């Protein structure tokens, strides 16, 4: 069996054929996969290239810190609330606030649960369920949310309405469905009044029911083809996430926890403001995206994954009953150690979706959510670091300011960057297991995207609308001439054009 580590860099790339999977549109981050093949279609090199965010860190230099929570939301159209909250947590540090009022913290948590609910629903139902329900080789024209609407109308409806509910939670906590302004330095600018609580409470029991159904669906899809679900794009890695002090799942706040593949702890309860002591970012010559790793494990062994899979593996319990029951079932899947299956991301994601619905209900019933103490004040500090568990995984915002309050340094490690190593390893796994020695077709290439989509990165290729992202795949010979081109247009039609020499 080929060792996937050898696929990062081929020994003599100049003699190989090149395949590029490249989305033509650029929505959020921009992703591209290149495969180098030899004459027998053996994959010799596989790389995921992501162009992202570094420009933003420069852009915010010199800006006043109080604008950050609103400005940085523009990083991502899919999870703006996560950036909003991570920045707000960092800005709390800058204004010297370590503890928010109960109302402020709970309103922010509610916003975050709403965000996670809508993002997980979007991701599972809209982006991934077509692959999982119909198979990777289903006709492209049908393998999308419209196909799901036709064949499984109830499932599609529930997905759409779960997402919409999450967006309503965001609207009422942040002021707008996207790009709101709810979190401000040291607190929030609004609470939830009685009317707003009642409005959201009306439908919450229904959402919990649908959350259960979504979880069951994710499990049945996982179990449908168990050997494939277990092994597809799977690589053994460490897992990193925030975790509550008592070991409970917490997507808003906690200490850093990392486990080895066998489940043993590498770090635990680490104040995330010291993250630079535990996580380093490696730079590689072929991409701008950095490759973070756990310092204690070193560059080679320090690969980790973040996101639902890491969080459900890492925590000791979940404090809402339905999600906790689901977690126990999930963990029992791995005889020992952690659940490493890449496709189990979807299962873990639906456990979290169910948890979000339960947690939203609890918060809506908490009188603090209507409290009137919204802001805490403190003394200015020069450095602020905020970390949050975004839907896609741990998200780090780090700012330093001058005396006047202007940003002098910014460092962001987004979820996609955290998963960069692992995603690269996953596509190499797919290249070896599924593509090696075969004529490349759309269904085969789609498997690369299926692997990327499991992680739910902020890439346009993972978030294309309705499964119709335009996609171009090129097979280029050693001289750089395109010999084959596979093109998937915005209608989902695929055409292969042979280019005559």
């Amino acid at each position: 069996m080929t060792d996937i580590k050898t696929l990062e860099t081929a020994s003599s790339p100049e003699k190989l054929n090149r395949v590029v999977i490249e989305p033509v549109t650029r929505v959020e981050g921009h992703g591209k996969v290149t495969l180098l093949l030899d004459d027998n279609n053996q994959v010799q090199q596989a790389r995921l290239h992501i162009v992202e965010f570094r420009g933003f860190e420069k852009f915010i230099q010199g800006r006043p810190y109080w604008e950050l929570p609103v400005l940085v939301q523009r990083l991502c159209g899919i999870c703006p609330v996560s950036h909003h909250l991570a920045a707000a947590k960092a800005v709390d540090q800058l204004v010297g606030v370590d503890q928010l009022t109960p109302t402020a913290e709970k309103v922010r948590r509610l916003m975050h649960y709403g965000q996670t609910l809508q993002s997980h629903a979007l991701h599972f139902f809209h982006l991934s369920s077509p692959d999982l329900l119909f198979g990777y080789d289903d006709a492209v024209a049908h393998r999308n949310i419209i196909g799901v609407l036709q064949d499984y109308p109830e499932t599609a409806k529930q997905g759409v309405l779960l997402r919409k509910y999450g967006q309503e939670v965001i609207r009422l906590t942040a002021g707008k469905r996207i790009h709101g302004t709810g979190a401000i330095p040291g607190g929030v600018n609004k609470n939830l009044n009685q009317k707003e609580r009642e409005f959201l409470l009306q439908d919450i029991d229904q959402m919990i029911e649908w959350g259960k159904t979504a979880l069951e669906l994710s499990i049945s899809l996982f179990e449908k083809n168990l050997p494939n679900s277990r092994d597809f794009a799977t690589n053994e890695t460490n897992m990193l996430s925030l975790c509550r002090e008592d070991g409970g799942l917490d997507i808003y706040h906690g200490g850093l926890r990392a486990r080895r593949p066998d489940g043993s702890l590498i770090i635990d309860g680490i104040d995330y403001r010291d993250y630079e002591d535990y996580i380093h970012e490696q730079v590689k010559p072929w991409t701008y995206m950095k490759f973070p790793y756990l310092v204690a494990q070193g560059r080679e062994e320090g690969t980790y994954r973040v996101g639902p899979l890491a969080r459900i593996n890492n925590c000791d319990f979940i404090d809402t009953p339905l999600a906790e029951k689901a977690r126990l079932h999930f963990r029992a899947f791995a005889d020992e150690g952690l659940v490493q299956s890449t496709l189990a991301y979807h299962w873990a994601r639906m456990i979290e979706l169910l948890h979000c619905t339960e947690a939203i209900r609890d918060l809506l019933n908490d009188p603090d959510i209507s409290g009137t103490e919204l802001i805490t004040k403190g003394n200015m500090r020069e450095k602020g670091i905020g970390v949050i568990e975004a839907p896609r995984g741990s998200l780090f915002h780090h700012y330093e300011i001058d005396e006047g309050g202007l940003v002098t340094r910014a460092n962001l490690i987004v979820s996609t960057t955290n998963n960069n190593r692992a995603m690269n390893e996953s596509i190499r796994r797919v290249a070896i297991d599924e593509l090696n020695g075969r004529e490349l077709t759309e269904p085969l290439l789609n498997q690369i995207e299926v692997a990327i989509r499991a992680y739910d990165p902020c890439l346009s290729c993972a978030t294309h609308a309705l499964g119709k992202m335009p996609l171009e795949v090129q097979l280029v010979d050693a001289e750089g001439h395109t010999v084959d081109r596979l093109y998937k247009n915005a209608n989902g039609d695929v055409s292969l054009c042979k280019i005559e020499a």
Partner: protein
Amino acid sequence: MIRHFTLDGKKIPFREGQTIMEAAQDAGIYIPHLCYNPEFVPHGSCRVCTVKANGRIVASCTTPATEEMQVENETEELQGNRRELLQMLFVEGNHVCPGCEKSGACQLQAVAYYTGMLAPEFTYFYPMRTVDSSHPDVAIDYNRCILCELCVRASRDEDGKNIFSIDGRGINTHLTVNSASGKLGDTDFDVHDKAAQVCPVGAILPKHEGYNIPIGQRLYDRKPISVVGDVADHQEE
């Protein structure tokens, strides 16, 4: 003696010496403007208040009303001219409204909406401008300055401090602070000065405050500028 002129077909009374703008405001009619503030001597520089008086293009804030004058204000032609002026103001500076604390309570934005401008259409200049954060309470973001000179007038005429002035020519015209270092922190500027209250945009703003008023509840979120008027009249809100 009360006299009258006609504004978009309506008879408007005016007193001797009143400008078209003043008479219109007294009659409750909105003529869009940026550099005009009734508390200060009119300046006539932004040209957003341009109207047609007896067929001639004039700034309504500086042109005295006269008996029987025929004034056009809300015509498609004039609104179109205003939109173009506003388009130019947007691309001459760096206006990132989504990240601006003034958004929703900004006169430039509100007038742009009023005239039907939805997005900048001209090529951005992307000028290199800075933020002066040297003062403990107030920051100046030069990226958003539209050279209305209201802070200049307020500081000179009301605060008696003469802290601001306008320097340079043409496209290089810019706001400066009258201190040796050019920094606001080296002047006796105070957050309670009139000059700190008059900026119609987000160029002079109190520090450490971001988005305390939720979106949807800001001045021009609730009602259009033609109804609620200038932001300076609502500073305490």
